[in-house]
């Protein structure tokens, strides 16, 4: 069973945008905000990908 994670959403051009774990140039172009959001999305994705047995990859 995999652990469910909420997607990371940021505002891009005034609209909410779900940050893909693989990143997008649009997100990177946001600079500090984009990099933080992307790192968070990746982290969540990596956690989600690991079975929820309490030994998730940190």
């Amino acid at each position, binding site marked *: 069973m995999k652990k469910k994670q909420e997607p990371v959403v940021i505002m891009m051009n005034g609209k909410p945008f779900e940050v*893909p774990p*693989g*990143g*997008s*140039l*649009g997100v*990177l*172009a*946001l*600079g*500090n*905000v*984009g*990099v*933080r959001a992307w*790192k968070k999305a*990746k982290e969540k994705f990596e956690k989600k990908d690991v079975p929820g047995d309490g030994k998730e990859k940190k």
Partner: protein
Amino acid sequence: MEKKKNKVLLIGWDAADWKIIDKLMANGLMPAMKSLVESGVRGKLATLDPPLSPMLWTSMATGVRPYRHGVIGFVEHDGKGGVRSVSSHYRKVKAFWNMLTMEGYKSNVIAWWPSNPVESINGCMVSNLFQQEKKGRETMERENWEIPEGTIYPESLKEQLMELRVHPHDITGNLVMPFVPQAVALDKKKDKRLTVISKFIAHATTVHAACTELMETQEWDLTAVYHDAIDHFSHGFMKFHPPMMPNRDKEEYELFKDVVIGAYVFHDMMLDRLLKMIDDDTTVIIVSDHGFHSDHLRPPHIPKVPSGPAIEHAPYGIFVAKGPGIKKGERIHGASVLDVTPTLLTLFDLPVGRDMDGKPLVNIFDHPKTVQYIDSWEKVDKPGGELVSVSEESLEATNEAALQQLVDLGYIDEMKLDDSNEDQQEYLKGIIKENQFYLAKSYISGGKHEEALEILLEIEDKSNPDFRFLIDIINSAIKTKRYPLAKEYLNYVRKNELMSDAYMDTLEAKIALGLNDGETALKMLKSAIKSKPDAIEILIELGRLFNSLRELTKARECFLKVIEKDPDNAHAYHGAGVSYLREENYEEALDYFLNAVDKMHHYPMAHFHIGETLALMKEYSAAIGSFEVALTMNPDLPKTYRWLIDLNEIIENQKAVDYYKNKLKSKIIDEKVIITGLPGEKLMSVIDLLRENGFDVKGDPLNEAQWANPLNNDILEGVKEHICYLPENMIQNLLARYDCRFVVVNDEAEKVSEFINSKARLKKSSYNADLIDGLVKMDTTARIWLGQQPNLDIFYINELEDDKNEMLISFVKN
């Protein structure tokens, strides 16, 4: 946080070029840049020679040329017998962040090249090694990616900025796809080019993240950020940029043709974010240090010499400025990388150093801007920030990584770890010698040929000849009129076959011109053009020589051929303009001169010729404007003052007449007017006209003895008079003795021959064909000499007409 007013955001994009940006803006792919250009000013930013980025960005940050700021080349001596990547240690003068610190302004400076180690300025500084993932020669994994000492000031920002770094290994296929849409078809492990692209994206993202973080969390008056990615992407992939270059692999072209476009588009996206972070009170400036050839001027091969990749750099970078008090939607001309710091200082109402080589770009402002000056920022005794101290161990590790990056980019050769000590010493010597060469180039670029020659003669080693050093020795020797030295090195290069014969023929022609040997010059240039019919430099020289010889159609053919090959070549437009001007085709001449200054604004002779053409078209006020521009660029040209005196007299501006007369007086002592030309009817009419107008013209064109003996002291004695006729074979001897300006009467040999024969019949003496031939040869030599003296004030007469007569009298009078 208190909201600061009148802030400045300075963005540096290494190697950004208008040719690509204009196409992308037209296609809607750079909307942020387009909005900026439409609501601000744009222009070309002239680079310096050599076009090497650390030298240029330091010139940009200081307003002085490299031989003054001290950052030379890509590497520097480490003071312990080794070399290190260029650093802040060698900068000898203050940068704009020091000047702003002294005056209490706060700056964010991010990734400026070179800025490691950082300085304790008023604000924050992140060095150009911040994004570096290498430690020594090893790549650090993201889990243990350290931040080297000396890369962040203040240290307290370290944790905050560290978390914003993006490691090249984090770059996914998603992110590479916009650059290489068919990336999946490539094996990332085998094809290193995808790894390189990932690295460039990671570095650009890291720098941008640090910049946005500091803009958002710190108080600032100036934020200055530098990106090297466009330069790096261009060096790696411009060869695949459309249109496909001849002899390229079609498959590779298809794979990588979007990389450069991707790089520009990504920068525009980052720009969009920055623009959304600022308010209307903030001035935004975007600059690049040089351009990058993206069309038929792309070199087919990169020379295998240090800094060889710089051959791909184009001579103009970009300049854009938008903000309060700045013009909208206009173009500016004449900007140089040296002007960035003076312009920044002016934006902050701070004084510009009189010792700076650059000038504030006052033409960007919509209202006249008062510029303040001080003698030098070096004399201001206020704290401006010190280099932070860094441990030896950390310095070595970061240095090795930085050196490796320069090796990867092809700017320096690699030193192998297993090389013997002797090999390593040779390597180090080579690098130091290379830097001396760049220093010499910098002197040449600043017009200091004596200083350049001294260095070049010292580093030149005939046992290990380097053609680049030898060519610059010959050119500098020609510039300093050391013709025997130029000839000596030219013979050496020829003997050892170090350069193509065509190139050496061109240099030999320049030496011959210096020695007034027009015949040899023409022979050499014709030989050169035969083997290289499309060589731009040879065509320009040949065209100039034909202009001097008044073979105007041939001259024009050369220049038009250059324009066809290189439509941005200002010298070709200027040369073609001169050929039309000499034909009195003023409309065409003006068109070509205007094109010349459009391509290269800082071209005093082109502005001068625009003035001359407009004056001859009776557009007096416009002509005055052009002469004034020429004067600001070259204040040592007496003939410009004379034109300004004449024209202001015509428009009855006595105040200006007096001003320029005073200026001219301080430049000229005891000046003579020499009338010369073939001794025909036209020349006699000119002399008669002057005598009729009360001028006491000495000399007699029909005195045969004058033509035969060029060293006749009696004739030169005649020059004691203010106005004197001298035969053309005498004029070259004059300049050592007197300041002169010339009235040159153009006539045809046949008509002159008829005139002399008619006079001979009257006098019953004999003029033979040999004498006529001799006169024609003398005329040719004199014209070549006059053509090589751009500073001389010459009034050419083709026909005597009423309006020309007035100008002639005015020319002689002043």
